[in-house]
């Protein structure tokens, strides 16, 4: 009896004591749930053409959550690639540099749109950026939020309650909503806010980008299918998610046009749709030669991201030809970013 107990105890101690191997023969990728389906498809195609490689492990943590892990440091326990549905912020870049992550390659893999959608049975809303800002901001124009119905925001809109299902604050889709739609809508209706942006960034964010927390905006987590399901049962609600979910569910959902532009492939590709945004992957150059498969992964991405490529079939929108050429150059020459690159806020 004692012998058996000792064996169990020894196993337990051995299990807790064993630590990580000093090398890793598969890639680790973290980040955006929007880029996740594309990165998994690329990873799979890479292994099919190079069966000697192990499939990368891809975790969908949201862009913000992934950045924290990615910038945690250099070494086997830290991820090699970050999927991002927005650009890295200067703060995140600083955190990376502080933890010894020098040399990050920024590769734009494609485009996506922040789509607003409603059920087919919905009231057929047509919104402007200003309407969305007034309906969703916590403090529109510096005053507390009081709008309960869309008609409170803009008399020409129907008298239906404002009910919006959207992503949580760790999500890049939420950041894109704040930057592309709320901040721009805010500057359109509130001249003071534009001045605030130059003098006090925090006050500007508070006034223009903070989303109301009184229950009209419901955070549905990173699971976009749940938003789709909720929309089909509540016809008056509006959902916010990546374009690919709208495309896949066109038979159940209608897109809500913003500023009169519908969320379609063409409108996002030529950036006339206000919610169009770039999708990136960030790559640690320090890991490029240490982890097997990283170069193949990047090359596989560039083979698949064209307008006729398999990623478009999965719901991505191809980036314009000049952007794709630039991304290929970054992969080929291993060009890294500096703090200055990130200051340029324009989509490219």
């Amino acid at each position, binding site marked *: *009896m004692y012998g058996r*107990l000792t064996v*169990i*105890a020894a*196993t*337990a101690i051995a*299990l*807790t004591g*064993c*630590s*990580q*191997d000093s090398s890793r023969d*598969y890639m*680790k990728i973290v980040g955006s*749930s929007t880029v*996740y*389906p594309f990165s*998994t*498809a690329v*990873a*799979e195609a890479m*292994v*099919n*053409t*190079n*069966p*000697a490689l*192990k*499939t*990368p*492990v*891809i*975790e*969908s943590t949201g862009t913000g959550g992934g950045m924290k892990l990615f910038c945690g440091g250099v070494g086997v*326990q830290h991820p090699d690639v970050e999927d991002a549905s927005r650009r890295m912020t200067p703060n995140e870049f600083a955190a990376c540099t502080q933890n010894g992550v020098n040399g990050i390659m920024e590769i734009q893999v494609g485009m996506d749109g922040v789509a607003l959608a409603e059920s087919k049975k919905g009231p057929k809303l047509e919104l402007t950026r200003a309407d969305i800002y007034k309906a969703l901001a916590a403090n529109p124009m510096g005053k507390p939020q009081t709008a309960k119905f869309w008609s409170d925001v803009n008399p020409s809109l129907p008298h239906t309650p404002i009910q919006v299902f959207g992503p949580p604050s760790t999500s890049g889709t939420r950041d894109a909503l704040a930057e592309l739609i709320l901040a721009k809508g805010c500057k359109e209706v509130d001249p003071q806010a534009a001045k605030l942006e130059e003098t006090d960034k925090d006050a500007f964010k508070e006034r223009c980008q903070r989303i109301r927390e009184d229950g009209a905006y419901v955070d549905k987590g*990173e*699971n*976009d*299918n*749940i938003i789709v399901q909720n929309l089909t049962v509540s016809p008056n609600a509006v959902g916010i998610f990546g374009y*690919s*979910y709208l495309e*896949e569910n066109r*038979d159940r959902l209608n897109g809500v046009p913003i500023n009169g532009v519908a969320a379609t492939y063409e409108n996002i590709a030529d950036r006339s749709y206000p919610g169009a945004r770039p999708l990136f992957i960030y790559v640690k150059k320090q890991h490029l030669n240490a982890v097997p498969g990283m170069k193949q992964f990047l090359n596989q991405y560039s083979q698949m991201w064209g307008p006729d490529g*398999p990623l478009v079939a*999965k*719901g991505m929108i191809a980036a314009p030809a000049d952007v794709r050429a630039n991304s290929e150059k970054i992969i080929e020459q291993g060009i890294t970013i500096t703090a200055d690159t990130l200051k340029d806020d324009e989509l490219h």
Partner: protein
Amino acid sequence: MQKRIRRRYAAERRFKFMGLAAVVLSAGFLAFLLVTMLSNGLAGFSRTEVALPIDFPAAKLDVTAKQLQNRGADLALAGAGLDEVVDKAATAAFGEQGIDIISDRAWTEVREALKSDPTLLSRKARIDVPVSQDVQNALDGGGKPAMRAIVSGMQAKGLFSNKFDFGFLTSADSTDPTNVGIWGALKGSLFTMLVTLLIAFPIGVLSAVYLEEYAPRNRWTDLIEVSINNLAAVPSIIFGLLGLAVFLSFLNLPRSASLVGGLTLALMIMPVIVIASRNAIKAVPPSIRDAALGVGASKVQVIFHHVLPLALPGILTGTIIGMARALGETAPLLMIGMRAFIAQPPEGLTDPATVLPVQIFLWSDQVSRGFVERTSAAIIVLLVFLLAMNALAIYLRNRFETRW
């Protein structure tokens, strides 16, 4: 008087009826769950295949039969452009839309067929390959109208066949619903449960034995008892954060590994095991201990020869309930990175792995609609696993139960 008696009987009947209604309601929910799962999920265990004629000699694949028996067969076939050969065969057989009819991964199916029978290289053959999700949607009565027309034409010729999908039980996650499998997650669950059991069972039972048989009753043991009861009620996500801080940040164990998942879940179910074991030990009549001590047994002999064997059914029931809870747990595992896309089953405890409930969660978030059936099928696998565990618990309990 009569009236009051009648009222009393009526109250009795009402109470009995309410109890019955409660049972019927819960049974109804259970039946609803099972019926929807089974009706959605059974389709997830099968897949539609289409017979694809391929003329291998005409394709001039640059591989020899000998190469196909070597380890480098996969590489050789990928290098020889097998995927293009399969695409061309599909276009030749089914017309312009051919490539859209077969699954993107159809060529890997052809690859396996070639590897198992290299003589195929020298003749024409019909190989059953999985159909694409578009065709599957069309067969289910949805999808694009153009595809529906093509599919109904092919259906009339009897080109499709519906087969039990062994791949679902033997492969791991994939991006294509026609190719996914549950084995990776099932193996991850098995590894995780193994670690949990190895850690939580001995530590939990030992603590229970000490607290019941040795510990003096004072303020300290009261405090420990209250803490254990509190720990049993702590939300599981908090154990996830604990696991993240202790095992990943402090001990530097690998992220996404079933080892870390098992350790975290062991922390979570340990209080449950301690409480159940203490109650079981408490229920052993003191007369048995006194009798054993009376004939000269030592304390350790009393515990191992008399108390534990009698308490074992209760301890096992508690352990299995705890394990069942751990098996269905998702939240703490999300914190330690077990929610990743992992396309190969784990080989060891430190390999990246995922578990059944997390796999279900991941598939429920997939864009492609083919995952709905697969999600239900995965739920059925999880329920079967759970039933097997509970059946084992009942068997063990009946086997060790002693009545006096």
